[in-house]
């Protein structure tokens, strides 16, 4: 069902706008937080009023819709558009909480081999004419799914956890990305207490290998699992530290936030007691 709007809907072809930015969120290693990051950054950017399109490029293993809480609203997906069965407008899912955000879901029962790289690139291109930001959620690995996802993107965000395997995989991906307008880093799931005890890599350790400009550092927080399970991006929760971190990163991407990323500190004794007795930080 189509919603009637008075102003041209974000992403509609009648709304004139400057050419948008296409950013792929990738990592190499699975499970480091690409989808969570795409969802939260997209939401944060949209909350500032920008028109944002999110594309789930993980054909066959789609998850972006779940993390956004939009799975019930998905009717069509990327392949439906690429294969000409529906228009792009019909396939884009709206988010009632965030009016300027749209999602293009992945196909669940198809394979990544079914996607034509050139067609994907053309799709991203056309979305850039309608949206300020096109964020592409890249699948894990460096196979065809990865190649499809990076095809139309000028910019890349590497998500990496402070673990040796993740850093190695991220490094491989940076090599494969080759020349892009920008490749930047988000270090995710940092445990400052473990870093201090020497049981985890520090942000410096990670960037000693990756050598990328740092967009932000996000501390590990149990609230993230809860939010992804429930489909409520943390940027919508004013009390969430993770949400705040993502909003700051969104600001840096938009150029409105010129602060340098903070590296989270180990919790103080009182904070620790707080979580011991239950209740979220």
């Amino acid at each position, binding site marked *: 069902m189509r919603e009637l709007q008075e102003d041209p809907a974000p992403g509609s072809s009648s709304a004139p706008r400057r050419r948008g930015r296409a950013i792929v969120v990738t990592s190499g290693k699975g*499970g480091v937080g690409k989808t969570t990051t795409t969802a939260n950054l997209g939401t944060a950017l949209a909350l500032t009023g920008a028109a944002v399109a999110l594309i789930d490029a993980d054909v066959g293993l789609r998850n972006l819709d779940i993390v956004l809480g939009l799975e019930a609203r998905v009717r069509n997906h990327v392949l439906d558009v690429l294969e000409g069965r529906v228009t792009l407008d019909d396939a884009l899912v709206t988010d009632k909480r965030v009016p300027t955000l749209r999602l293009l879901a992945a196909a669940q029962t198809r394979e990544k081999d079914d996607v034509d790289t050139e067609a994907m690139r053309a799709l991203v291109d056309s979305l850039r004419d309608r949206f300020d930001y096109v964020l592409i959620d890249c699948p894990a690995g460096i196979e065809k799914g990865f190649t499809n996802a990076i095809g139309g993107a000028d910019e890349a965000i590497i998500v990496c956890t402070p673990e040796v395997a993740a850093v190695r995989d991220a490094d491989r991906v940076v090599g494969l990305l080759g020349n892009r307008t920008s490749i930047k880093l988000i270090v995710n799931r940092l445990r400052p207490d473990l870093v201090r005890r020497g049981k985890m890599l520090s942000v410096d350790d990670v960037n000693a290998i990756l050598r990328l400009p740092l967009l932000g550092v996000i501390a590990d927080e149990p609230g993230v699992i809860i939010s992804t*399970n429930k489909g409520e991006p943390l940027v919508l929760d004013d009390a969430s530290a993770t949400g705040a971190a993502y909003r700051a990163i969104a600001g840096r991407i938009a150029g409105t936030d010129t602060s340098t990323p903070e590296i989270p500190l180990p919790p103080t004794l009182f904070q620790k007691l707080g979580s011991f007795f239950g209740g979220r930080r």
Partner: protein
Amino acid sequence: MSARRIVLTSGKGGVGKTTATANLGAALAKRGKRVILVDADIGLRNLDLVLGLEKRIVFDLVEVVEGRCQLRQALIKDKRFQSLAILPAAQTRDKTAVSETQFAEVVAGLDELCDYVLIDCPAGIEHGFRNAVAGAAEAIVVTTPEVSAIRDADRVIGKLNERGLPIRLIVNRIRPDMVRTGDMMSVDDVVDILGVKLLGMIPDDEEVIDTTNRGEPIVLVPDSHLGEIFEKIARRLEGENVAFTTLTAPGFFGRLFGQRKAG
């Protein structure tokens, strides 16, 4: 007698396949079984890292397939165990370097050399996944109690069913405290949804990060809770009927509440 060939897969990345492959293999080797671990993640190899064997790699699976070395030359023995070796993946190639048939042939070549072949599958369900599965006669699906992971595991189980592989389940990174507060699915929920027989349940443990970074298998860490759990999983794999141990949540009230049995 020919070796058991088991692939560890998940769909979702980052749920602990590689750590599980390494530690299950190590636990089996500790019990005197001859074990060879195969890394099917060409281009993003990590199995060698997790076992601390990276520096000893001279030849890899792709070179075996391309006939540039003998299979035995590529195997790296882990000196900490009686009979544990790995066949590393190539780092500078990609998964299209090897076809399903070729992969299956390499694994078949290991038959005489060991009792167990454990294949570490890459994330996803693309070419790398198909290769890994082509070499196997059994599967272990690894998942975490999270909606995304379960959804992906479900997809993978569907694909494994198509190939008729017997499947068992490991649920990893369980946080009993979150299960208790209802913020995380219980293992029973997961087993119900996926409909696959449970092989093991592993709690979330921050020790894993450090030991994998250092290349030390958890089963070698003395008094390690996680190490014991992997040893139990190994025994179950061998056919023993081992009870699941209780996972207790940290905190005063852990034992007062009925805990889901785990192990």
